[in-house]
Protein backbone atom coordinates (compact mmCIF):
# COMPACT_ATOMS: atom_id res chain seq x y z
CA UNK A 1 0.00 0.00 0.00
CA UNK A 2 0.99 3.62 -0.06
CA UNK A 3 1.96 3.78 -3.70
CA UNK A 4 0.68 7.33 -4.00
CA UNK A 5 2.84 8.51 -1.14
CA UNK A 6 5.88 7.53 -3.16
CA UNK A 7 7.55 10.20 -5.21
CA UNK A 8 6.96 9.16 -8.75
CA UNK A 9 9.98 8.74 -10.91
CA UNK A 10 9.74 10.96 -13.96
CA UNK A 11 9.66 8.31 -16.61
CA UNK A 12 10.74 9.35 -20.09
CA UNK A 13 7.70 10.01 -22.18
CA UNK A 14 8.77 10.14 -25.82
CA UNK A 15 5.27 11.02 -26.97
CA UNK A 16 5.65 14.39 -25.34
CA UNK A 17 9.14 14.93 -26.61
CA UNK A 18 9.62 16.78 -29.86
CA UNK A 19 12.87 15.13 -30.76
CA UNK A 20 14.22 11.62 -30.98
CA UNK A 21 15.76 11.53 -27.50
CA UNK A 22 14.50 10.34 -24.15
CA UNK A 23 16.09 11.36 -20.91
CA UNK A 24 17.05 8.79 -18.29
CA UNK A 25 15.30 9.68 -15.07
CA UNK A 26 18.20 8.50 -12.98
CA UNK A 27 21.37 9.75 -14.68
CA UNK A 28 19.60 12.30 -16.92
CA UNK A 29 21.54 11.12 -19.95
CA UNK A 30 19.86 11.75 -23.30
CA UNK A 31 19.36 8.51 -25.11
CA UNK A 32 18.31 7.90 -28.69
CA UNK A 33 14.71 6.74 -28.69
CA UNK A 34 15.71 3.84 -30.92
CA UNK A 35 18.36 2.64 -28.51
CA UNK A 36 16.03 3.11 -25.55
CA UNK A 37 13.47 0.88 -27.21
CA UNK A 38 16.04 -1.67 -28.21
CA UNK A 39 17.27 -1.85 -24.63
CA UNK A 40 13.67 -2.27 -23.47
CA UNK A 41 13.77 0.93 -21.43
CA UNK A 42 17.13 0.27 -19.84
CA UNK A 43 19.56 3.15 -19.74
CA UNK A 44 22.74 2.20 -21.63
CA UNK A 45 24.73 4.56 -19.46
CA UNK A 46 23.67 3.88 -15.84
CA UNK A 47 21.74 0.63 -16.33
CA UNK A 48 18.60 2.15 -14.84
CA UNK A 49 15.74 -0.27 -15.49
CA UNK A 50 12.69 1.86 -16.04
CA UNK A 51 9.30 0.36 -15.29
CA UNK A 52 7.48 -1.56 -17.96
CA UNK A 53 3.76 -1.87 -18.43
CA UNK A 54 2.36 -5.38 -18.24
CA UNK A 55 1.88 -5.34 -22.00
CA UNK A 56 5.48 -4.32 -22.65
CA UNK A 57 6.68 -7.06 -20.32
CA UNK A 58 4.46 -9.56 -22.09
CA UNK A 59 5.93 -8.61 -25.45
CA UNK A 60 9.40 -9.02 -23.98
CA UNK A 61 8.80 -12.49 -22.61
CA UNK A 62 6.11 -14.31 -24.52
CA UNK A 63 6.41 -15.45 -28.12
CA UNK A 64 4.39 -13.19 -30.40
CA UNK A 65 0.85 -14.38 -30.94
CA UNK A 66 1.02 -17.19 -28.40
CA UNK A 67 -0.62 -15.47 -25.43
CA UNK A 68 -4.07 -16.43 -24.20
CA UNK A 69 -5.45 -14.09 -21.60
CA UNK A 70 -7.36 -15.27 -18.54
CA UNK A 71 -9.92 -13.21 -16.62
CA UNK A 72 -9.70 -10.31 -19.05
CA UNK A 73 -12.99 -8.83 -17.88
CA UNK A 74 -12.43 -9.13 -14.16
CA UNK A 75 -12.66 -5.70 -12.54
CA UNK A 76 -12.06 -4.50 -8.99
CA UNK A 77 -14.89 -5.09 -6.56
CA UNK A 78 -15.66 -2.57 -3.84
CA UNK A 79 -16.48 -4.72 -0.81
CA UNK A 80 -16.17 -1.87 1.69
CA UNK A 81 -17.84 0.81 -0.48
CA UNK A 82 -14.73 2.72 0.43
CA UNK A 83 -14.32 6.46 0.19
CA UNK A 84 -11.76 8.79 1.67
CA UNK A 85 -11.14 12.51 1.74
CA UNK A 86 -10.27 12.55 -1.94
CA UNK A 87 -13.15 10.54 -3.29
CA UNK A 88 -14.38 7.03 -3.71
CA UNK A 89 -12.40 3.91 -4.51
CA UNK A 90 -14.81 3.21 -7.34
CA UNK A 91 -13.82 6.46 -9.01
CA UNK A 92 -10.14 5.77 -8.55
CA UNK A 93 -10.47 2.33 -10.06
CA UNK A 94 -12.35 3.81 -12.99
CA UNK A 95 -9.61 6.38 -13.51
CA UNK A 96 -6.97 3.63 -13.43
CA UNK A 97 -8.90 1.69 -16.05
CA UNK A 98 -9.12 4.75 -18.25
CA UNK A 99 -5.42 5.51 -17.85
CA UNK A 100 -4.07 2.03 -18.48
CA UNK A 101 -6.66 0.34 -20.62
CA UNK A 102 -6.50 -2.54 -18.14
CA UNK A 103 -9.28 -3.83 -15.91
CA UNK A 104 -6.98 -4.80 -13.06
CA UNK A 105 -3.39 -4.45 -11.91
CA UNK A 106 -2.41 -7.82 -13.30
CA UNK A 107 -2.38 -9.34 -16.76
CA UNK A 108 -2.94 -13.10 -16.49
CA UNK A 109 -2.78 -15.91 -18.97
CA UNK A 110 -0.60 -18.50 -20.61
CA UNK A 111 1.58 -18.64 -23.65
CA UNK A 112 4.91 -19.76 -25.06
CA UNK A 113 8.31 -18.66 -23.91
CA UNK A 114 10.79 -19.68 -26.59
CA UNK A 115 8.24 -22.36 -27.44
CA UNK A 116 7.86 -23.62 -23.85
CA UNK A 117 4.26 -23.45 -22.67
CA UNK A 118 3.90 -21.55 -19.41
CA UNK A 119 1.32 -19.82 -17.28
CA UNK A 120 2.21 -16.23 -16.57
CA UNK A 121 0.91 -13.29 -14.56
CA UNK A 122 2.37 -9.82 -14.97
CA UNK A 123 1.60 -6.91 -12.70
CA UNK A 124 1.26 -3.34 -13.88
CA UNK A 125 2.32 -0.67 -11.44
CA UNK A 126 0.35 2.04 -13.26
CA UNK A 127 -2.92 0.47 -12.16
CA UNK A 128 -3.41 1.74 -8.59
CA UNK A 129 0.25 1.18 -7.86
CA UNK A 130 -0.01 -2.49 -8.69
CA UNK A 131 -1.92 -2.91 -5.46
CA UNK A 132 -3.30 -6.30 -4.46
CA UNK A 133 -7.09 -6.24 -4.32
CA UNK A 134 -9.60 -9.04 -4.41
CA UNK A 135 -9.69 -9.21 -8.19
CA UNK A 136 -5.93 -8.93 -8.44
CA UNK A 137 -5.63 -11.92 -6.15
CA UNK A 138 -8.31 -13.68 -8.11
CA UNK A 139 -6.33 -13.34 -11.33
CA UNK A 140 -3.10 -14.50 -9.69
CA UNK A 141 -4.97 -17.53 -8.39
CA UNK A 142 -6.47 -18.17 -11.84
CA UNK A 143 -2.93 -18.25 -13.19
CA UNK A 144 -1.56 -20.68 -10.60
CA UNK A 145 -4.67 -22.83 -10.92
CA UNK A 146 -4.32 -22.88 -14.69
CA UNK A 147 -0.72 -24.01 -14.26
CA UNK A 148 -1.70 -26.64 -11.69
CA UNK A 149 -4.53 -27.93 -13.84
CA UNK A 150 -2.47 -28.11 -17.01
CA UNK A 151 0.80 -29.18 -15.43
CA UNK A 152 2.54 -26.04 -16.58
CA UNK A 153 5.25 -23.98 -14.97
CA UNK A 154 4.20 -20.59 -13.67
CA UNK A 155 5.91 -17.23 -13.94
CA UNK A 156 4.80 -14.22 -11.91
CA UNK A 157 6.27 -10.82 -12.62
CA UNK A 158 5.57 -8.56 -9.66
CA UNK A 159 5.39 -4.77 -9.53
CA UNK A 160 3.40 -3.57 -6.58
CA UNK A 161 3.26 -1.20 -3.66
CA UNK A 162 1.45 -3.85 -1.61
CA UNK A 163 -2.08 -4.42 -0.38
CA UNK A 164 -4.97 -2.31 -1.69
CA UNK A 165 -6.22 -0.72 1.49
CA UNK A 166 -9.48 0.43 -0.10
CA UNK A 167 -10.55 -3.19 0.07
CA UNK A 168 -9.53 -3.57 3.70
CA UNK A 169 -9.29 -7.12 4.95
CA UNK A 170 -10.43 -8.51 1.61
CA UNK A 171 -7.14 -7.21 0.30
CA UNK A 172 -5.06 -8.68 3.15
CA UNK A 173 -6.66 -12.07 2.61
CA UNK A 174 -5.42 -12.11 -0.98
CA UNK A 175 -2.01 -12.87 0.45
CA UNK A 176 -3.43 -16.11 1.83
CA UNK A 177 -5.46 -16.80 -1.27
CA UNK A 178 -2.57 -16.44 -3.69
CA UNK A 179 -0.18 -18.43 -1.49
CA UNK A 180 -2.75 -21.20 -1.28
CA UNK A 181 -2.54 -21.24 -5.07
CA UNK A 182 1.24 -21.45 -4.97
CA UNK A 183 0.99 -24.31 -2.46
CA UNK A 184 -0.91 -26.28 -5.08
CA UNK A 185 1.96 -25.82 -7.52
CA UNK A 186 4.33 -27.11 -4.86
CA UNK A 187 2.17 -30.15 -4.27
CA UNK A 188 2.47 -30.97 -7.96
CA UNK A 189 6.22 -30.21 -8.21
CA UNK A 190 5.54 -27.48 -10.76
CA UNK A 191 8.05 -24.65 -10.81
CA UNK A 192 7.12 -21.12 -9.84
CA UNK A 193 9.51 -18.45 -11.02
CA UNK A 194 9.03 -15.12 -9.30
CA UNK A 195 10.41 -12.10 -11.12
CA UNK A 196 10.60 -9.05 -8.88
CA UNK A 197 10.66 -5.72 -10.62
CA UNK A 198 10.63 -2.21 -9.27
CA UNK A 199 8.87 -2.04 -6.83
CA UNK A 200 7.87 -5.29 -5.13
CA UNK A 201 6.88 -4.37 -1.60
CA UNK A 202 4.36 -4.86 1.21
CA UNK A 203 1.76 -7.57 0.89
CA UNK A 204 2.97 -8.73 -2.50
CA UNK A 205 6.55 -9.21 -1.31
CA UNK A 206 5.12 -11.01 1.72
CA UNK A 207 3.11 -13.43 -0.37
CA UNK A 208 3.48 -14.92 -3.84
CA UNK A 209 6.55 -12.92 -4.84
CA UNK A 210 8.67 -14.51 -2.09
CA UNK A 211 7.68 -18.15 -2.32
CA UNK A 212 9.00 -19.05 -5.74
CA UNK A 213 11.35 -21.90 -6.49
CA UNK A 214 13.43 -19.23 -8.16
CA UNK A 215 13.63 -15.57 -7.28
CA UNK A 216 14.84 -13.32 -10.07
CA UNK A 217 15.08 -9.57 -9.76
CA UNK A 218 15.89 -6.68 -12.02
CA UNK A 219 18.94 -4.57 -11.13
CA UNK A 220 18.19 -1.84 -8.63
CA UNK A 221 14.58 -2.90 -8.08
CA UNK A 222 13.09 -1.85 -4.74
CA UNK A 223 12.09 -4.99 -2.83
CA UNK A 224 11.00 -5.13 0.78
CA UNK A 225 8.21 -5.53 3.27
CA UNK A 226 7.94 -2.33 5.30
CA UNK A 227 8.29 1.11 3.78
CA UNK A 228 11.55 3.01 4.13
CA UNK A 229 9.89 5.92 5.92
CA UNK A 230 8.16 3.70 8.46
CA UNK A 231 11.42 1.92 9.21
CA UNK A 232 13.34 5.17 9.58
CA UNK A 233 10.72 6.43 12.00
CA UNK A 234 10.89 3.19 13.96
CA UNK A 235 14.64 2.84 14.29
CA UNK A 236 15.23 6.61 14.31
CA UNK A 237 18.13 6.51 11.90
CA UNK A 238 18.64 6.91 8.21
CA UNK A 239 18.82 3.78 6.13
CA UNK A 240 21.70 3.07 3.76
CA UNK A 241 21.08 3.92 0.12
CA UNK A 242 21.19 0.34 -1.09
CA UNK A 243 18.70 -0.82 1.54
CA UNK A 244 15.90 -2.92 0.01
CA UNK A 245 17.46 -2.99 -3.43
CA UNK A 246 17.61 -6.21 -5.40
CA UNK A 247 21.35 -6.28 -4.74
CA UNK A 248 20.81 -5.92 -0.99
CA UNK A 249 18.29 -8.72 -1.00
CA UNK A 250 20.58 -11.00 -2.93
CA UNK A 251 23.36 -10.39 -0.44
CA UNK A 252 20.94 -11.33 2.33
CA UNK A 253 19.97 -14.58 0.67
CA UNK A 254 16.58 -13.91 -0.89
CA UNK A 255 17.33 -13.54 -4.59
CA UNK A 256 18.75 -16.28 -6.80
CA UNK A 257 19.78 -14.12 -9.73
CA UNK A 258 19.78 -10.46 -10.58
CA UNK A 259 19.18 -10.40 -14.26
CA UNK A 260 19.62 -7.80 -16.95
CA UNK A 261 16.28 -7.17 -18.65
CA UNK A 262 17.56 -8.08 -22.08
CA UNK A 263 18.64 -11.46 -20.73
CA UNK A 264 15.51 -12.22 -18.75
CA UNK A 265 13.74 -14.27 -21.38
CA UNK A 266 16.74 -16.44 -22.05
CA UNK A 267 17.33 -17.05 -18.32
CA UNK A 268 13.69 -17.96 -17.79
CA UNK A 269 13.95 -20.39 -20.67
CA UNK A 270 17.05 -22.04 -19.22
CA UNK A 271 15.45 -22.41 -15.80
CA UNK A 272 12.35 -23.97 -17.30
CA UNK A 273 14.50 -26.43 -19.20
CA UNK A 274 16.41 -27.41 -16.05
CA UNK A 275 13.05 -27.96 -14.36
CA UNK A 276 12.15 -30.46 -17.03
CA UNK A 277 9.58 -28.31 -18.87
CA UNK A 278 9.12 -29.03 -22.52
Amino acid sequence: MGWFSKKKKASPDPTKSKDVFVQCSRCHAHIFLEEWKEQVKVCPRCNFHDRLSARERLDLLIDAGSFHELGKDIRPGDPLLFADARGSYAEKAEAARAKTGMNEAVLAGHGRLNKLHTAIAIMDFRFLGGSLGGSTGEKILMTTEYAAGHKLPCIIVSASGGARMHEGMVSLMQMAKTCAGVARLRQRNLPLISVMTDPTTGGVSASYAMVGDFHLAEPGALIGFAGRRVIEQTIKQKLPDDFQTAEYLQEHGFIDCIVQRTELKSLLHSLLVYCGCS
Partner: protein
Amino acid sequence: MLDFEKDLSVLDQRIDELKQLSEQGEADFSAEIENLAAKQRQIAKRVYADLTPWQTVQVARHPQRPVLRDWIGLLFSDFIELHGDRCFGDDAAIIGGFATLENRRLMLIGHQKGKNVDENMERNFGMARPEGYRKALRLMKLAEKFSLPVVCFIDTPGAYPGMDAEARGQAEAIANNILEMSTLKTPILVLVTGEGGSGGALGIGVGDTILMMQHAIYSVISPEGCASILWRDGNRASDAAAALKLTAASLMELRLVDEIVPEPPGGAHRNDEATAASIRTVLLEHLKRLTRIPVSKLITRRFDKYAKIGQPL
Protein backbone atom coordinates in the same frame (compact mmCIF):
# COMPACT_ATOMS: atom_id res chain seq x y z
CA MET B 1 -8.00 4.81 30.88
CA LEU B 2 -10.13 5.50 27.84
CA ASP B 3 -12.53 8.43 27.58
CA PHE B 4 -15.63 6.32 27.52
CA GLU B 5 -14.43 4.34 30.51
CA LYS B 6 -14.55 7.32 32.84
CA ASP B 7 -17.91 6.60 34.40
CA LEU B 8 -16.94 3.00 34.95
CA SER B 9 -13.74 4.09 36.54
CA VAL B 10 -15.43 6.49 38.91
CA LEU B 11 -17.70 3.69 40.05
CA ASP B 12 -14.69 1.41 40.45
CA GLN B 13 -13.25 3.89 42.88
CA ARG B 14 -16.47 4.24 44.83
CA ILE B 15 -16.88 0.50 45.13
CA ASP B 16 -13.31 0.10 46.27
CA GLU B 17 -13.79 2.74 48.94
CA LEU B 18 -16.90 1.07 50.27
CA LYS B 19 -15.17 -2.29 50.25
CA GLN B 20 -12.32 -0.89 52.27
CA LEU B 21 -14.68 0.65 54.75
CA SER B 22 -16.49 -2.68 55.03
CA GLU B 23 -13.23 -4.44 55.67
CA GLN B 24 -12.25 -1.93 58.31
CA GLY B 25 -15.50 -2.89 60.02
CA GLU B 26 -16.95 0.63 59.84
CA ALA B 27 -20.27 -0.68 58.65
CA ASP B 28 -21.78 -3.15 56.19
CA PHE B 29 -21.97 -1.57 52.75
CA SER B 30 -22.66 -4.74 50.83
CA ALA B 31 -26.05 -3.58 49.65
CA GLU B 32 -24.62 -0.27 48.40
CA ILE B 33 -21.75 -2.09 46.73
CA GLU B 34 -24.10 -4.46 44.95
CA ASN B 35 -26.16 -1.48 43.92
CA LEU B 36 -23.22 0.37 42.46
CA ALA B 37 -21.96 -2.75 40.74
CA ALA B 38 -25.31 -3.29 39.08
CA LYS B 39 -25.31 0.29 37.95
CA GLN B 40 -21.79 -0.16 36.62
CA ARG B 41 -22.77 -3.25 34.66
CA GLN B 42 -25.62 -1.31 33.16
CA ILE B 43 -23.37 1.54 32.08
CA ALA B 44 -20.77 -0.85 30.75
CA LYS B 45 -23.40 -2.68 28.78
CA ARG B 46 -24.71 0.54 27.29
CA VAL B 47 -21.32 2.03 26.45
CA TYR B 48 -19.87 -1.18 25.05
CA ALA B 49 -22.94 -2.07 23.05
CA ASP B 50 -22.40 0.99 21.00
CA LEU B 51 -18.66 1.46 20.56
CA THR B 52 -17.57 3.26 17.44
CA PRO B 53 -14.92 1.52 15.31
CA TRP B 54 -12.31 3.90 16.68
CA GLN B 55 -13.37 3.19 20.26
CA THR B 56 -13.10 -0.52 19.47
CA VAL B 57 -9.55 0.09 18.30
CA GLN B 58 -8.84 1.65 21.66
CA VAL B 59 -10.35 -1.25 23.57
CA ALA B 60 -8.43 -3.76 21.44
CA ARG B 61 -5.22 -1.92 22.35
CA HIS B 62 -6.17 -1.30 25.96
CA PRO B 63 -3.07 -1.43 28.16
CA GLN B 64 -4.94 -3.59 30.67
CA ARG B 65 -6.32 -5.96 28.08
CA PRO B 66 -5.12 -9.50 28.83
CA VAL B 67 -2.13 -10.60 26.77
CA LEU B 68 -1.16 -14.10 25.71
CA ARG B 69 0.53 -15.01 28.98
CA ASP B 70 -2.65 -14.04 30.80
CA TRP B 71 -4.78 -16.18 28.54
CA ILE B 72 -2.41 -19.10 28.98
CA GLY B 73 -2.78 -18.88 32.74
CA LEU B 74 -6.53 -18.52 32.51
CA LEU B 75 -7.26 -21.16 29.90
CA PHE B 76 -4.74 -23.97 29.87
CA SER B 77 -3.92 -26.54 32.50
CA ASP B 78 -0.45 -27.10 31.06
CA PHE B 79 1.94 -25.17 28.86
CA ILE B 80 5.40 -26.26 27.74
CA GLU B 81 7.07 -23.42 25.93
CA LEU B 82 9.29 -24.42 23.04
CA HIS B 83 11.92 -21.92 22.02
CA GLY B 84 13.78 -20.96 18.89
CA ASP B 85 13.62 -21.08 15.12
CA ARG B 86 16.64 -23.45 14.81
CA CYS B 87 18.29 -20.92 12.61
CA PHE B 88 18.90 -17.52 14.11
CA GLY B 89 17.14 -16.72 17.34
CA ASP B 90 14.27 -16.96 19.76
CA ASP B 91 11.84 -14.12 19.20
CA ALA B 92 10.05 -13.12 22.39
CA ALA B 93 7.29 -11.39 20.41
CA ILE B 94 5.88 -14.74 19.35
CA ILE B 95 5.76 -17.63 21.77
CA GLY B 96 4.48 -21.14 21.42
CA GLY B 97 4.42 -24.58 22.86
CA PHE B 98 2.32 -27.53 23.85
CA ALA B 99 -0.79 -26.71 25.84
CA THR B 100 -3.76 -28.57 27.24
CA LEU B 101 -7.32 -27.24 27.18
CA GLU B 102 -9.60 -29.48 29.22
CA ASN B 103 -7.74 -32.64 28.25
CA ARG B 104 -7.38 -31.56 24.65
CA ARG B 105 -3.72 -31.36 23.72
CA LEU B 106 -2.74 -28.77 21.16
CA MET B 107 0.02 -26.52 19.87
CA LEU B 108 -0.49 -22.97 21.02
CA ILE B 109 1.19 -20.13 19.15
CA GLY B 110 0.64 -16.44 19.57
CA HIS B 111 1.93 -12.91 19.70
CA GLN B 112 3.08 -11.83 23.12
CA LYS B 113 2.65 -8.19 24.07
CA GLY B 114 3.76 -6.73 27.37
CA LYS B 115 1.69 -4.88 29.92
CA ASN B 116 4.34 -2.46 31.11
CA VAL B 117 7.37 -0.75 29.65
CA ASP B 118 9.87 -3.46 30.55
CA GLU B 119 7.70 -6.24 29.28
CA ASN B 120 6.98 -4.34 26.11
CA MET B 121 10.66 -3.78 25.49
CA GLU B 122 11.29 -7.48 26.00
CA ARG B 123 8.38 -8.46 23.76
CA ASN B 124 8.96 -5.68 21.24
CA PHE B 125 5.31 -4.64 21.71
CA GLY B 126 4.25 -7.92 20.14
CA MET B 127 5.89 -7.02 16.83
CA ALA B 128 7.65 -10.12 15.56
CA ARG B 129 10.79 -10.45 13.48
CA PRO B 130 11.42 -13.14 10.87
CA GLU B 131 12.76 -15.53 13.51
CA GLY B 132 9.42 -15.27 15.30
CA TYR B 133 7.53 -16.37 12.21
CA ARG B 134 10.05 -19.11 11.54
CA LYS B 135 9.75 -20.39 15.10
CA ALA B 136 5.99 -20.42 14.68
CA LEU B 137 6.29 -22.45 11.50
CA ARG B 138 8.64 -24.92 13.15
CA LEU B 139 6.10 -25.47 15.91
CA MET B 140 3.27 -25.86 13.41
CA LYS B 141 5.27 -28.53 11.61
CA LEU B 142 5.78 -30.32 14.93
CA ALA B 143 2.04 -30.18 15.53
CA GLU B 144 1.41 -31.59 12.07
CA LYS B 145 3.92 -34.38 12.67
CA PHE B 146 2.34 -35.40 15.94
CA SER B 147 -1.27 -34.82 14.84
CA LEU B 148 -2.10 -32.02 17.22
CA PRO B 149 -4.35 -29.11 16.28
CA VAL B 150 -2.78 -25.67 16.10
CA VAL B 151 -4.37 -22.75 17.93
CA CYS B 152 -3.10 -19.26 17.11
CA PHE B 153 -3.75 -16.22 19.27
CA ILE B 154 -3.34 -13.01 17.29
CA ASP B 155 -2.43 -9.76 19.02
CA THR B 156 0.06 -7.53 17.24
CA PRO B 157 0.31 -4.00 15.87
CA GLY B 158 2.08 -5.61 12.92
CA ALA B 159 5.35 -7.24 11.94
CA TYR B 160 8.33 -5.27 13.21
CA PRO B 161 9.34 -2.62 10.67
CA GLY B 162 13.03 -2.64 11.57
CA MET B 163 16.13 -2.74 9.45
CA ASP B 164 17.28 -6.04 10.90
CA ALA B 165 13.90 -7.62 10.29
CA GLU B 166 14.02 -6.57 6.64
CA ALA B 167 17.59 -7.80 6.28
CA ARG B 168 16.62 -11.23 7.60
CA GLY B 169 13.60 -11.52 5.33
CA GLN B 170 10.44 -10.33 7.01
CA ALA B 171 8.62 -10.64 3.69
CA GLU B 172 9.93 -14.12 3.00
CA ALA B 173 9.17 -15.38 6.49
CA ILE B 174 5.59 -14.17 6.45
CA ALA B 175 4.99 -15.37 2.90
CA ASN B 176 6.35 -18.79 3.66
CA ASN B 177 4.21 -19.16 6.77
CA ILE B 178 1.08 -18.15 4.92
CA LEU B 179 1.84 -20.68 2.23
CA GLU B 180 2.69 -23.51 4.60
CA MET B 181 -0.37 -22.88 6.74
CA SER B 182 -2.59 -23.20 3.71
CA THR B 183 -1.66 -26.88 3.41
CA LEU B 184 -0.68 -27.82 6.96
CA LYS B 185 -2.11 -31.27 7.59
CA THR B 186 -3.76 -30.56 10.91
CA PRO B 187 -6.59 -28.28 12.01
CA ILE B 188 -5.71 -24.61 12.55
CA LEU B 189 -7.91 -22.49 14.74
CA VAL B 190 -7.23 -18.76 14.82
CA LEU B 191 -8.44 -16.33 17.46
CA VAL B 192 -7.84 -12.61 17.15
CA THR B 193 -7.69 -11.56 20.78
CA GLY B 194 -6.65 -7.92 20.45
CA GLU B 195 -5.00 -6.24 17.50
CA GLY B 196 -4.85 -8.04 14.19
CA GLY B 197 -2.20 -5.97 12.50
CA SER B 198 -1.93 -6.70 8.80
CA GLY B 199 0.70 -9.12 7.48
CA GLY B 200 2.18 -9.44 10.95
CA ALA B 201 -1.10 -10.99 12.06
CA LEU B 202 -1.66 -13.08 8.95
CA GLY B 203 1.81 -14.60 9.32
CA ILE B 204 0.29 -16.86 11.98
CA GLY B 205 -3.31 -16.24 10.94
CA VAL B 206 -4.25 -18.61 8.13
CA GLY B 207 -6.60 -21.29 9.37
CA ASP B 208 -9.72 -23.40 9.07
CA THR B 209 -11.75 -21.23 11.39
CA ILE B 210 -11.14 -17.60 12.22
CA LEU B 211 -12.55 -16.34 15.49
CA MET B 212 -12.51 -12.81 16.82
CA MET B 213 -13.04 -11.41 20.27
CA GLN B 214 -15.95 -9.03 20.33
CA HIS B 215 -13.74 -5.99 20.81
CA ALA B 216 -10.76 -7.10 18.78
CA ILE B 217 -9.84 -5.51 15.48
CA TYR B 218 -8.26 -6.87 12.34
CA SER B 219 -7.05 -4.57 9.63
CA VAL B 220 -4.93 -4.37 6.49
CA ILE B 221 -3.34 -1.19 7.83
CA SER B 222 -3.49 0.72 11.09
CA PRO B 223 -6.18 3.43 11.10
CA GLU B 224 -3.46 5.99 11.74
CA GLY B 225 -1.42 4.79 8.77
CA CYS B 226 -4.44 4.74 6.53
CA ALA B 227 -5.50 8.22 7.66
CA SER B 228 -2.09 9.71 7.04
CA ILE B 229 -1.99 8.26 3.53
CA LEU B 230 -5.58 8.66 2.35
CA TRP B 231 -6.71 11.60 4.45
CA ARG B 232 -3.22 13.09 4.63
CA ASP B 233 -3.94 13.61 8.31
CA GLY B 234 -3.08 11.06 10.98
CA ASN B 235 -5.70 12.59 13.23
CA ARG B 236 -8.44 11.35 10.98
CA ALA B 237 -7.79 7.83 12.30
CA SER B 238 -11.38 7.51 13.46
CA ASP B 239 -12.61 8.13 9.93
CA ALA B 240 -10.16 5.59 8.62
CA ALA B 241 -11.15 3.09 11.32
CA ALA B 242 -14.75 3.37 10.19
CA ALA B 243 -13.92 3.10 6.50
CA LEU B 244 -11.62 0.08 6.97
CA LYS B 245 -14.36 -2.10 8.48
CA LEU B 246 -11.98 -3.56 11.01
CA THR B 247 -14.37 -4.60 13.79
CA ALA B 248 -15.47 -8.14 14.47
CA ALA B 249 -19.04 -7.30 13.54
CA SER B 250 -18.04 -5.77 10.18
CA LEU B 251 -15.76 -8.67 9.40
CA MET B 252 -18.53 -11.15 10.20
CA GLU B 253 -20.68 -9.32 7.69
CA LEU B 254 -17.90 -9.53 5.12
CA ARG B 255 -17.66 -13.26 5.95
CA LEU B 256 -13.99 -12.96 6.75
CA VAL B 257 -14.55 -14.11 10.31
CA ASP B 258 -16.44 -17.22 11.32
CA GLU B 259 -17.54 -16.44 14.84
CA ILE B 260 -17.35 -13.69 17.42
CA VAL B 261 -16.36 -14.56 20.98
CA PRO B 262 -18.46 -12.36 23.27
CA GLU B 263 -16.80 -10.25 25.94
CA PRO B 264 -18.42 -9.22 29.19
CA PRO B 265 -19.69 -5.65 29.41
CA GLY B 266 -16.72 -3.37 29.87
CA GLY B 267 -14.47 -5.61 27.80
CA ALA B 268 -12.07 -8.43 28.53
CA HIS B 269 -9.88 -6.33 30.79
CA ARG B 270 -12.74 -5.70 33.22
CA ASN B 271 -13.43 -9.39 33.67
CA ASP B 272 -10.75 -11.69 32.35
CA GLU B 273 -12.15 -14.82 33.94
CA ALA B 274 -15.56 -14.47 32.40
CA THR B 275 -13.89 -13.73 29.08
CA ALA B 276 -11.69 -16.79 29.42
CA ALA B 277 -14.76 -18.90 30.06
CA SER B 278 -16.37 -17.72 26.89
CA ILE B 279 -13.14 -18.29 24.93
CA ARG B 280 -12.86 -21.79 26.36
CA THR B 281 -16.36 -22.69 25.30
CA VAL B 282 -15.88 -21.48 21.75
CA LEU B 283 -12.43 -23.02 21.34
CA LEU B 284 -13.55 -26.41 22.58
CA GLU B 285 -16.56 -26.41 20.32
CA HIS B 286 -14.46 -25.66 17.25
CA LEU B 287 -11.66 -28.03 18.23
CA LYS B 288 -14.19 -30.82 18.57
CA ARG B 289 -15.66 -30.01 15.21
CA LEU B 290 -12.39 -29.55 13.32
CA THR B 291 -10.62 -32.62 14.68
CA ARG B 292 -13.49 -34.76 13.41
CA ILE B 293 -12.95 -33.67 9.81
CA PRO B 294 -10.58 -35.89 7.80
CA VAL B 295 -7.38 -33.99 7.09
CA SER B 296 -7.61 -34.19 3.31
CA LYS B 297 -11.08 -32.69 3.43
CA LEU B 298 -9.87 -30.04 5.82
CA ILE B 299 -7.17 -28.92 3.39
CA THR B 300 -9.58 -28.74 0.48
CA ARG B 301 -12.01 -26.72 2.55
CA ARG B 302 -9.26 -24.41 3.67
CA PHE B 303 -8.31 -23.76 0.08
CA ASP B 304 -11.90 -23.14 -0.93
CA LYS B 305 -12.41 -20.81 1.99
CA TYR B 306 -9.61 -18.52 0.89
CA ALA B 307 -10.23 -18.91 -2.83
CA LYS B 308 -13.70 -17.46 -2.30
CA ILE B 309 -12.48 -14.26 -0.68
CA GLY B 310 -12.57 -11.37 -3.12
CA GLN B 311 -14.09 -13.36 -5.95
CA PRO B 312 -15.96 -11.08 -8.35
CA LEU B 313 -19.70 -11.49 -7.91
